[in-house]
């Protein structure tokens, strides 16, 4: 049973279209993140689900009920705002009790629920304080409490961690995942932070320009990005994307760019020769030996690994990731190759779709070995460069 379904939902603000015909089906009890850069329509989508914005067209269902014409308070949802939106003149207890009060829950029951929620979120000591007397993390927990106390069908969270410092954010991530596990409720989480989306979600809906780019579990989004946008947006440091040309020789596909020429793994049947883009994650740039020469520009030390920024003779920059003890210095010329099992090929354009066969470049067992065996074979052209 689907908890939340968007069917061809469109939202226009005047002449600007914030969401273009969104179709999204979120399962009962699922933790789904809406991820994307600012202005991608993720917050508008969440606000439409909350009933704070009205879709221009399309239908939104919560628990098999179309809610387009249902007031926010009657949708059986709860929302945690980025700014927490606690009522400043009310105590913590009154804040948490407010949704119950508006629902007409009897006082005794209300007090019981508030006490239980406070206990769960370790707020018992703070019940009589006002929001301004609390730290950011505590306010965050009160906002969560106000959502939890209603026991809603769906929790909506709008960048709830972005106002916290890094350490607290990490802590709250774990707390939220645990809370989700314990409650088993559907949660829709809006964030621009891919780390939050990757670590917490069952599935991630990557959005850009008001359109859904990919809706898949975190590993799939990372290993098999649906298109070039997803590939470039997910992953830190980002995937290196090299524009070039794809040519075909029977069953073999060859990718060529200035200074690079390599055989690539099996592509989808609808792949055609022509302009294309090669994507390589930093961990799949193999530095030390290979047919390509690169000059090290920057070495970023993060402790357990180094991020190496290289420049090829064509001026193309790429990022590699190598285990920590390394003595490379900027200016040094190194040889490198790409792990062909894990390269990605995308069609032309900023949202060029992924051409690899499903499961192939992710290095899964289903990958047909034929092309991969030759993938790193240097070509004459490469040798020249």
């Amino acid at each position, binding site marked *: 049973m689907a908890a939340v379904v968007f069917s061809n939902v469109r939202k226009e603000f005047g002449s600007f279209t914030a969401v273009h015909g969104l179709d999204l089906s979120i399962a009962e009890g699922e933790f789904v993140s809406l991820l994307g850069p600012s202005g991608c329509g993720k917050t508008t989508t969440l606000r439409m689900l*909350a*009933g*704070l914005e009205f879709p221009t067209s399309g239908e939104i269902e919560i628990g098999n009920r179309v809610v387009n014409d249902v*007031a*926010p*308070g*009657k949708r059986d*949802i*709860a*929302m945690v*705002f*980025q*700014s927490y*939106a*606690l*009522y*400043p*003149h*009310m105590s913590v207890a009154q804040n948490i009790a*407010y*949704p119950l009060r*508006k*629902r007409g829950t009897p006082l005794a029951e209300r007090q019981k629920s508030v006490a239980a929620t406070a206990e769960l979120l370790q707020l018992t000591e703070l019940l009589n304080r006002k929001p301004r007397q609390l730290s950011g993390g505590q306010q965050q927990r009160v906002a969560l409490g*106000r959502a939890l106390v*209603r026991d809603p069908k769906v929790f909506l969270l709008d960048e709830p961690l972005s106002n916290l410092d890094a350490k607290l954010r990490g802590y709250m991530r774990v707390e939220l995942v645990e809370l989700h596990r314990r409650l088993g409720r559907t949660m829709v989480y809006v964030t621009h932070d891919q780390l939050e989306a990757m670590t917490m979600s069952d599935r991630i809906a990557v959005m850009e320009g008001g359109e859904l780019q990919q809706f898949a579990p975190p590993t799939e989004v990372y290993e098999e990005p649906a298109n070039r946008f997803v590939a470039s947006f997910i992953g830190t440091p980002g995937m290196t994307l090299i524009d070039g040309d794809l040519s075909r020789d029977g069953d073999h596909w060859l990718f060529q760019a200035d200074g690079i020429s390599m055989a690539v793994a099996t592509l989808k049947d609808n792949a055609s020769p022509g302009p294309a883009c090669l994507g390589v994650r930093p961990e799949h740039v193999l530095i030390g030996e290979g047919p390509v020469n690169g000059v090290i520009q920057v070495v970023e030390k993060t402790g357990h690994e180094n991020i190496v920024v290289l420049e090829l003779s064509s001026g193309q920059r790429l990022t590699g990731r190598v285990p920590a003890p390394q003595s490379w210095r900027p200016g040094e010329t190194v040889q490198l190759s790409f792990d062909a099992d894990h390269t990605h090929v995308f069609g032309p354009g900023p949202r060029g779709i992924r051409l690899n066969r499903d499961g192939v470049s992710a290095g899964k067992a289903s990958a047909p070995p034929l092309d991969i065996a030759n993938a790193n074979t240097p070509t004459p052209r490469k040798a020249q460069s």
Partner: protein
Amino acid sequence: MPSQTRTLLERRYAALGVMLIAPTVVVFCSVIVYPLLSAIYLSFFSIFTPTLEGDFVGLGNYTELLQTEVFWSSLGTTLIWTVGTLTLQILFGVGMALVLHQNIWFRSLARSLILFPYFISTVVAVLVWKWLFNDLYGIMNHFLISIGFIDFPMDYLGTMPNALISVILVGAWKYFPFVVIAVLARLQTIPDALYEAAKIDGAGPIARFFDVTLPQLRDVLVVIILLRAIWDFKEFDLIFLLTGGGPLRDTQTLPLLVYQEAFALNDMGKASAYAVVMMAIMLVFMLIYIRRTRTEDGS
């Protein structure tokens, strides 16, 4: 002594500080402290205004005024005027601010027009209102008769309680824009997320007003009420020009009484005593105001 341990630079800064505040202190003393002390001093004398000469009577003026019926009736009128006009100012002001806070197409025009009564000179405003209120050719009577509300022209300023009601209404009209500005400024700072959270929590429009808007307005309303209470309590020109305190003494407030004692009855001593008593009453509001603003700064 601490001054001995001060460095030269510190002393120079201190001297500069004194120099910078000196003009303000001089002006403050000459236009506020001196008249205040002088009024208190005069209130102990029985003084003929034109010559400013008279005898020391001690607290005589005070004991006399507390026994005068006109003092108590004027105080009563002042309180009715203050409470009445202030209540209307707050109700109209908050209501209008809420309307102007909405996204209506003529909002910016309305926001500037609404300030008109507040900026217009009291004399002009009163002349216009007197003309509107005129029992022979005023538009108010014409209008009320034409819609059938009354059969005969009403006397708005010459009878009671009409005169007091008219004064209160004109006062409310003149000063409610102040409330609008202050409340509107505050309304614009209430985060939208609070209303959205309340919507999701199931609060309807009325609940949102009482649970979100009003609590947020509380602080600014307290300040507005205190300030306007002080200003309305000492209001002189509007009432003096509109009714002159009449009919008889029915709209005579304390400031009008002070004026009358000082310049009509030429008893400056007694007038000063009235003024000092007025100040004592307003001091209560002022102290509350000062305390209020201080605790706000502190928190």
